[in-house]
């Protein structure tokens, strides 16, 4: 006669922890935690084959040349000055150039533009920053230039949005961002690289 029902032994789960630990370690090894970050840029549209050589006539005062030679040395040239410069000088120079606060005749021309939300503004939207590199320029130098240019525009846009809307650019509404972008458009041109370099 059967005795009282035998108690079923529970599954031994002591090793489950070890198994899941192994899985955890496997995932830690094979995955990368770092979120990818980078400098977002937009390339110009491909040249139209039907169009004849589209050389735009840009007034000399509207152009700031930013050149990098094969050593990664920076050369800045506009109507006011030309010569080698340090990377740290680039940002204030670009800001001064794009802003043209005193409406100087050697910095980009200003003209009246009607912008939604901002009304009539005096803007320098015809300015062009021309970045030229040598084929041997180190990528890091080029990247730092791009970074400084974006930083200069970001600072200008931030200043304007604080003044007009009382908030930083990133906290603005989309239509307000549009207005600010029209005030300070990013006109960075990257011409085909040339073999230049004069004194080298």
């Amino acid at each position, binding site marked *: 006669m059967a005795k009282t029902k035998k108690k079923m032994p529970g599954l031994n789960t002591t090793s489950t*922890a070890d198994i899941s630990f192994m899985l955890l370690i496997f995932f830690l090894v094979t995955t990368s935690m770092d979120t*990818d970050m980078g400098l977002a840029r937009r390339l110009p549209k491909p040249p139209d084959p039907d169009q004849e050589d589209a050389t735009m006539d840009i007034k000399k005062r509207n152009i700031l040349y930013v050149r*990098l030679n094969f050593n990664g040395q920076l050369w800045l040239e506009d109507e006011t000055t030309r010569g080698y410069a340090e990377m740290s000088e680039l940002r204030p120079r670009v800001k001064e150039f794009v802003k043209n606060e005193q409406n100087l005749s050697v910095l980009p021309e200003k003209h009246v533009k009607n912008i939604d939300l901002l009304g009539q503004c005096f803007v320098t939207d015809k300015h062009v920053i021309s970045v030229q590199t040598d084929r041997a320029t180190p990528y890091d130098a080029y990247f730092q230039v791009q970074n400084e240019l974006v930083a200069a525009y970001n600072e200008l846009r931030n200043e304007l949005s604080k003044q007009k809307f009382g908030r930083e650019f990133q906290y603005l509404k989309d239509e307000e961002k549009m207005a600010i972008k029209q005030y300070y458009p990013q006109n960075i041109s990257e011409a085909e690289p040339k073999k230049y370099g004069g004194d080298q």
Partner: protein
Amino acid sequence: MPEMNTSSLPDLIFTILFFFMMVTTMREVTLKVKFTIPAGTELEKLEKKSVVSFIYVGPPTDQLRAQMGSGTRIQLNDRYAEAREVMDFIAAERQGMTNQAEQIISIKADQRTQMGYIIDIKEVLRKSWALRINYSASRRN
């Protein structure tokens, strides 16, 4: 002395495991080039991973240097490629994307790469209408 009850330990570990599976991404390719990306301040996060394609530029890794030399190489998916092959790569990457207009190309290039390689890649990218690019970088203060 009674033993500590460890029956909930697997659940705990599983929770950690799931957390890691959520926040991390699988490494898709084995890197055949080594690179130190530049450091910048004005960086944006690459949020939508599904629309991002990567192009790696740099010298071959230490294991491959003996065969491949130490010149700059471009890596697409799992192999070395020439700049002109980027066009096919872009087309192939677009195949699986639902929103092709949002495609972003992330260029992970070594700091010492000569701009010639980057210029060639950018020229091909322009021709293939992949205009949104992202120069991969780390944050600097």
